[in-house]
């Protein structure tokens, strides 16, 4: 929360103006009604005409002040909010950068990221509904109280009491009652969301196992629980609003009664009585935003805390290289030396005691069933995490001592989750190489057989307007624009038809040239050309060798080829 406040307070001018205009608008209304009350009271006792003229002129002045100030208040408060929001976005983006690979790795569904964005955007309520309404309320009240003090100290005292109750006690009371409900509500909503997601994602399995009714019941139960909490929260807010309104009514009543008593006793001039009642009726409109204050305060504070939690989550941080060592130039050899790694919440290690040497400039294929640890092998080579046991070395240097940027600068990594941004194809290619010209891009697109997509065509978010195979080839085009000493490719053509993928991969091998290349693949075709094939099973390396040696060995790889021989081509 402190961060957000600091970022907000940079907008000193806009904040000051918002509060000033908010104050003027509030006090303008009070003055207008006070003035009109005074006007008619004065009129009733037949005053000299100049008093009336002045009062009428003031009437106009106050109504213009009120309307114009409200306009200024809205303008500057929104400006301040938007500026702050842009600062907040940039701030959190910069702090999320170092967490990137793990952030997307651990939260594949993107739920966490969506939450982060939601939490950042929630900060827009901070200024508009938490920070400045109390300030405006208090200043308007203080000015009003000071004014009434001049006419009737008793009235001033009653207003003070009213301010304390509506501006402080009721919000505090509301806040204390809301404290527990908000997290509960979020938890219930999460539960509802996940049972809905199971209903749809698992619909077929539920239907064919006669489980739809049960799931439907569960969803409706959770919906009821969630709605109940929401309803309670709304009722609570309504109660707080009603109490607030009731208080303002009581205050007006007390002022009326006290004023009546004092006038009757001769302690207050009768002309002021109507004015005081009008003041009381008007000034409490400034306490209206305070009814929702507690919930917004709670919401923004929690959002800020959640953001802090993500930023300070150590498991998301990449290990830092204490004494960074430079990687020597040229093709990068890799070695895994007794590497083991188990992800959090996983039932078994992703990798177990893996020993592997990849020669500089060699072309290696890693094959195995889903979940056998192939991708983890690559992610360790990219230094997304360090192994629990053993070491991964690049050019003989333990990756713990290599700065990730230094490694990535030399690497072309095409991972399974490739991201494309909203924008043109060219924008997305440009990411890979700032120096690449249009002709380079067109050539790369030709190499991956995407020449039919013009560079200026728009990509939707996540390139949803391309097919899976096209997305994969576009990712390869990006890699083809970069020179690299290490190529790490994780199933880069799994959705591309066999003929095209063979041709595209040929271009990729050619572009890789003397660089070291590791290809994770579930396709056993065309592996004859690889220098080395690594067969993985359940987190362990089962076999290593060339195509020939592995086939002669008649082990796991040979069996895989046997099954593959049975698989009809083109019956995907």
């Amino acid at each position, binding site marked *: 929360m402190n961060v957000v406040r600091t970022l907000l307070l940079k907008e000193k001018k806009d904040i000051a103006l918002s509060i000033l205009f908010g104050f003027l608008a509030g006090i303008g209304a009070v003055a207008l009604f006070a003035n009109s009350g005074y006007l008619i009271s004065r009129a009733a006792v037949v005053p000299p*005409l100049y008093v009336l003229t002045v009062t009428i002129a003031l009437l106009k002045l106050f109504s213009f002040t009120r*309307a114009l100030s409200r306009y200024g208040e809205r303008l500057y408060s929104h*400006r301040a909010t938007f500026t702050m929001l842009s*600062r907040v976005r940039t701030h959190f983006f910069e702090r999320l950068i170092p967490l990137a690979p793990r952030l997307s790795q651990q939260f594949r569904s993107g739920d966490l990221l969506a939450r982060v964005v939601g939490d950042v955007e929630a900060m827009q309520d901070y200024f508009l509904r938490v920070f400045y309404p109390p300030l405006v309320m208090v200043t308007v009240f203080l000015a009003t109280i000071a004014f009434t003090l001049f006419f009737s100290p008793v009235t001033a005292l009653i207003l003070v009491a009213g301010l304390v109750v509506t501006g402080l006690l009721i919000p505090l009371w509301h806040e204390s009652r809301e404290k527990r409900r908000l997290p509960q509500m979020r938890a219930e909503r999460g539960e509802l969301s996940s049972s809905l997601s*199971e209903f749809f994602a698992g619909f077929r399995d539920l239907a064919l196992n006669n489980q739809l009714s049960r799931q439907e019941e569960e969803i409706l139960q959770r919906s009821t629980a969630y709605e109940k909490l929401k309803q309670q929260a709304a*009722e609570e807010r309504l109660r707080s609003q009603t109490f607030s309104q*009731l208080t303002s009514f009581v205050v007006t009543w007390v002022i009326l009664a006290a004023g009546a008593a004092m006038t009757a006793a001769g302690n207050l001039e009768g002309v002021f009585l109507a004015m005081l009642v009008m003041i009381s009726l008007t000034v409490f409109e400034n306490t209206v935003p305070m009814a929702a204050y507690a919930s917004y305060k709670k919401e923004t504070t929690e959002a800020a805390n959640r953001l802090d939690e993500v930023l300070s989550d150590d498991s998301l941080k990449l290990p830092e290289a204490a004494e960074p060592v430079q990687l020597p130039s040229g093709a990068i050899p890799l070695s895994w030396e007794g590497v083991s790694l188990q992800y959090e919440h996983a039932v078994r290690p992703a990798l177990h005691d893996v020993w592997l040497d990849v020669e500089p400039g060699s072309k290696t294929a890693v094959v195995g069933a889903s*979940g056998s640890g192939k991708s983890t092998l690559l992610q360790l080579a990219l230094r997304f995490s360090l192994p629990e046991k053993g070491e991964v070395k690049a050019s003989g240097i333990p990756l713990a001592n290599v700065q990730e940027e230094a490694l990535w600068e030399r690497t072309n990594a095409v991972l399974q989750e490739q991201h494309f941004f909203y924008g043109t194809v060219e924008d997305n290619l440009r990411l890979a190489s700032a120096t690449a010209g249009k002709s380079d891009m067109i050539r790369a697109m030709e190499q991956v057989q995407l020449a039919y997509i013009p560079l200026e065509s728009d990509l939707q978010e996540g390139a949803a307007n391309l097919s899976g195979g096209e997305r994969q080839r576009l990712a390869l085009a990006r890699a083809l624009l970069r020179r690299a000493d290490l190529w790490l490719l994780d199933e880069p053509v799994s959705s591309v038809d066999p003929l095209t993928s063979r041709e595209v991969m040929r271009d990729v091998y050619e572009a890789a040239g003397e660089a070291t290349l590791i290809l994770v693949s579930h396709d056993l075709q065309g592996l004859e050309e690889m220098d080395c094939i690594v067969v993985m099973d359940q987190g362990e390396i089962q076999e290593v060798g060339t195509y020939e040696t592995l086939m002669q060995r008649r082990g796991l790889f040979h069996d895989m080829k046997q*099954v593959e021989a049975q698989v009809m081509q083109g019956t995907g």
Partner: protein
Amino acid sequence: MIISVLIGLTIIAQAWLIVAVVDNVFLQGASFQEVLPELAGVMLALGARSILQYVNNLTGIRLAADVKQEFRTDILRHFRSSPVRAAGEGQSGGRISLALDAVDELEPYFRHYYVVMMQSSLVPLIVLGAVFYMNWVSGLILLVTAPFVPIMMAVIGRNTERKSEEQMEKLNRFAGTFLDLLRGLTTLRLFNQAGKQAAVIEADSNAYRDATMTVLKVAFLSALMLEFISMLSISLVALEVGLRMVVYDQLSFFTAFFVLILAPEFFASLKEMGSAFHSGRGSMGAAERIYEELDSGSETAARGDLERKGPPAFTFRSVTFDYGESRFALGPLDLTVNAGEHAAVIGPSGSGKSTLLHLFSGLYEAGEGTVGVDGRAIQEYEQEQWYADMAYVTQHPYLFAGTFRDNLRLGSPDASDEEVERAAAWAGLTPLMQEMPEGLDTVIGEGGRGISGGEKQRTALARAYLKQPSLLLYDEPTTGLDIETERILQRAMNELSERATVITVAHRLHTIREADRIFLMEEGALEAQGRHEELRQSSRNYQNMLEVQQGGAGR
């Protein structure tokens, strides 16, 4: 409506009594004791007004909760009886958001719009009537100026509102861009571009802010005009009553003060209606989205109550099927599978193999024609029993959040632990169970994260084993990298096939060769059918497939 009248009356009573108190002590020189009854009346009126508003809003809140629950029930029922839309291709995100967010967005309508319309619809009229009754000139001022409020809202509002809604949409899209950047942060970092993007975000945000501010300025200006109208009207009334009191001596203080208290109430209730109207509109969009979904897609017909036993025989008569969009249509298909036979469905991807399997399962309903089972239409059979006697082993079975045990006995909830363990062992899941910290009691996450694809398939096998089905639908894996699962699947399917009719979407040559019937699909049509030998003679496409396959195996 009654509540609206009551609220209007309390407002008038409140104003009347306050004025009476002030008038009495200020001008009539009454003592405090003499105004006590009026003071008590003010208290009563104020209290009644608060209570009425509270009750009215409470009704709105409860109504919103009830209506939302009803909508969720309807949406679920709709999807349940429209499996094509529920299980259809594409992300389930949109469907979840419909049942969760869109329904939540309905809330302002019932909680705010509906309530305010109930509450305030008559209030301005009642207040205006009271003012007219007391002082027709003030009433006339209000009456002449009041229409400017809706007119202004309409004239200025319409354009700016559309613009500001567009801008709000842009804001959402902008938030989307931010999310897009976060999702792609790894890619950005690998390309060493993350630092640059931070500057882009700030520049974009600020540009966006400036664009929004120009639109908002217009919106605020219209609010300013509204404020002017009401403020000027009120000060006009004040002026009018003041002048008529002093200069013309036409009005009493009582009337003047009364009118002066009511004038702002009049505009406040008008403005409240305006803002309620605005918040109601947001809900309309959500309601449209919901109704659009509820009205789309045909719902499945009611099922009958026939019971059946043993492996079923199928007869398809001119069966067609489409997904409600132009992209894909199946059929018309005519085919037969005899009881206990093993049929293989083959064909290129997108040719309709899975859709055909869904027609066999009864999950999808034929558009035209009939799917016959043992001489009766498939819909005539009792649904629960039909599914209980059928197993569907897919390539990507879904694992639900819950214990491993519950996942295994999904289709046979009454299975004992002993039976579950036997099924798990049979499906080759013993090693996984031993690795799990709490065995069968281990809680598996949503979608079964951390469990390999092969193990998920084996879980589906164990589910099938517990059912001992007489109809077996099988989606053969397209790759053969998981040797262990491959072996288990082969043995298991052979065992389960012995006493069942089996329909397989087949990718293995041996499966196809041994099938009693092969259905070769091509672009939604049945290209050829028959046994392996027959098709090898008669179907050019089949010959081609075999050739490509042998070519692949030879390399």
